[in-house]
């Protein structure tokens, strides 16, 4: 498993997978993708890294404890939901901000929806990694 080729290739692959996962997350609102898929892809990237370099190295690369990521994502999603309250709308009502919008172009859209999807991404990423790392270390 841990041949030199695999180890060398993973460095590149993991970076690509992570980029890809974020791209999937961001484009999810308009094209196939989204938080679930992005989170799963991101998790795959780190698992690949763990397979090649061991879960200890993967944990170090991740920097944060995956459990914290999962719970943080849950909090972020909740925050995005509660933010719907603020302008007087209901819970989980989306709030949008279009930066630099003109007549013809809607500019760069930022929204609580994106925040929520990011929360989903983090929960999936964190949960899967927490599981896989723990299982790998225990077995």
């Amino acid at each position, binding site marked *: 498993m841990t041949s030199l080729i695999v180890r060398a290739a993973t460095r590149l692959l993991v970076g690509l997978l992570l980029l890809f996962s974020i791209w999937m997350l961001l484009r999810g609102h308009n094209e196939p993708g989204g*938080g679930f898929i992005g989170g799963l892809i991101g998790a795959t990237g780190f698992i690949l890294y763990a397979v090649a370099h061991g879960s200890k190295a993967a944990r170090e690369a991740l920097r944060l404890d995956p459990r914290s990521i999962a719970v943080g*994502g849950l909090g972020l*999603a909740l925050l995005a*939901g509660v933010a719907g309250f603020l302008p007087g709308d209901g*819970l989980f009502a989306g709030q949008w901000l279009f930066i630099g919008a003109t007549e013809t172009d809607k500019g760069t859209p930022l929204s609580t929806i994106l925040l929520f999807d990011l929360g989903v991404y983090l929960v999936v990423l964190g949960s899967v990694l927490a*599981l896989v790392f723990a299982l790998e270390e225990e077995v």
Partner: protein
Amino acid sequence: MADDGTDRRFLGGPAGWISILLPFGLFLWFAQHIPAVAGGAVLRWDVEWIPSLGVTLGILLDGLSLSFALLISGIGALVTLYSASYLGGHPHYVRFVCYLMAFMTGMLGLVLSDNLLALFVFWEVTTVSSYLLIGFNADEAKSRRNALQALVVTGTGGLAFLAGIVLIGTAAGTFSISAIEGSLADHALYLPIFWLVIAGAFSKSAQFPLHFWLPNAMAAPTPVSAYLHSATMVKGGVYLLARMNPSLGGTDLWFWTLAIAGGFTAVFASVLAIRQTDIKQVLAYTTLMALGTLVLFIGVGTDYALEAAMAFLLVHSFYKAALFLMIGVVDHGTGTRDATVLRGLGRAMPVTMLAAMLAAASMAGLPPLFGFVGKEFLYKAALGAPAMIWVTGCIFAASVLMFVAAGIAAWRPFTGPLAETPVEPHEGPWPMLAGPVLLSVLGLAFGLMPDWAEALVAPAATAVAGRPVEVDLYLFKEVNAAFVLSLVTFATGFVLYLLHGRLRSGLARFKPRFDPGWDRLMDGVAAGAAGLTGLIQTGRLRRYIFVTFLALGLSTAVAVWRAGLSPEIPPLDDLEVKHWSVLTFILAGALLTAFTNSRMTAVAALGVVGIGVALVFIIFGAPDVAITQLLVEVLQVVLVAVAMLKLPYLNHEYVKTVRGWDLLLAISIGAMTTVILLAVQAAPLDLELTAFFEEASAPLAFGRNIVNVILVDFRALDTFGEIAVVAVAALGAYALLKGVRRPSP
């Protein structure tokens, strides 16, 4: 009172004096309402509790509930004062006080509630807290058993009562006691209501044949016995009967049931009382007698009878609480409660003797005590009652035996030559004496001035009767039949008292024993439960799963059959090669997983199935789902592969033995799935929601991927719940892996 707070430590610390002040304050609060209620007013306060169920926490203060409330809070204050000394040094004293306060709250709620459902809740509070109190000495098996017995008997009665309440609500259209108009006697539900309420009342007030738990409940500490079994809990059933008398009373059934059960309990219990040697047990059985008497006279239901019952209620509470507390002092001062041992304590315990003599004289019905007034009225009412012979006979026999019991409990132990006792006899401390002295002096005061008691007895009797009742209590007016009967009672009682030693040994052969039967019943229940558990819960996972799937299959089959679902086989002409290949993938993968012997083959076959499913998603326009499916498939394989490193191989005998029944069940459920899916597909599809999402996605939610917009915007709350589940599952699995200390396999 003891609330001056000068010697707090002596009174059991904060727990002690709070528990003394609380009932005392309540007593004063209730007492201030005496003039209004005596004047015929009915006070009420309403608090909405569960508006949707129509449960109002109505407080109803009429003569009946005020009498009870005064007894509960007043005797409560004396009992807690007593306990502070009796149990003040007990390691669990605070716990005891909490139980006692919970009980008092329940009891007050019970008598003050106007709503039957609220009443029932408080009823159960008293059941549970009395269980805790009776079983307070929890390290004794006997104590635990007797507490459980009381709980089961009164709890079962409580369930019956609840059913009765529901029926009353149906019959009367209201749960508010004061709103029940007229009598329910002519209602079609009267019979079931009657028996259910009777079951509740008789179990709580220990009427024959549900009486056996009460003497056993004497396992409780003495203050508990004095409180629960004189003034309060056991009178809960009496209260209920009195309260329901206007609605349920007045029928022949009511009269005969209450008269026979009450009369029989009264006589039966007083005979058993004579037989006891433990003075506390003597008192327990005389409590049964008093309860029987009350039930009997509520059943009789004439003005005189209700008046007598309410007067006797007060009489009994005074002397019985005093005597119970007294026997606690004696027990404390001598180390024994055995009537055959105790003699001549008068010199060593003069105050106790005074209280005991006064209370016992009231119990024996001697003038000029309140007990005499009470007994005169019982006789007067009995002589005018329907079924006069039975009622009078019962009450005469019970009164005679009560006289004897009073002698055994309070005369004999204090007179004559001093006998050897385990502890050198000494007087109790003042907090323990305050209660008995006060209560017995009250018995004397009310006897000399019966007019005082009228203020409570008259409105109480009015409330029970449901019509105005004139009450005129007096100590002595003229020589009439009741007075003569009293004299005969004293004479007979005196003779029997002189003979009571022989009487006791004679009665010792007469042993109605309910406890072995009870124990057998409980053992039977336990054995039955164990047998049933053994039958249903074999401890074999696959049996449970089999039963679950069988039930699922059968219920679905019935539903399919009832709905008349007709699966149609759609045309197969548009099928392409890719469709057939997906089918082949999935069928092969599923069957291989089911029948392989190799773990790795199974995992690979599962992967094939998963990819096949993903292909279906791709073919039918679901790229998001397909991507997710593929990724999850990859992760599943990773997880299984990691776990497999430490798990054993599958057993190889597996394939040789085809499990016929399992296979049959599996095929049936699979076939049913196919049938249902075909039927669903044949039915027209409701696309209203989908249409909304399609229209609203871009203009409202600024998203062009409708699936994702649904997930993160329209149904974001659902999604939030789902990711929470994922996070919890992961954390749970993490804890299983890392958190548990691993025992050596």
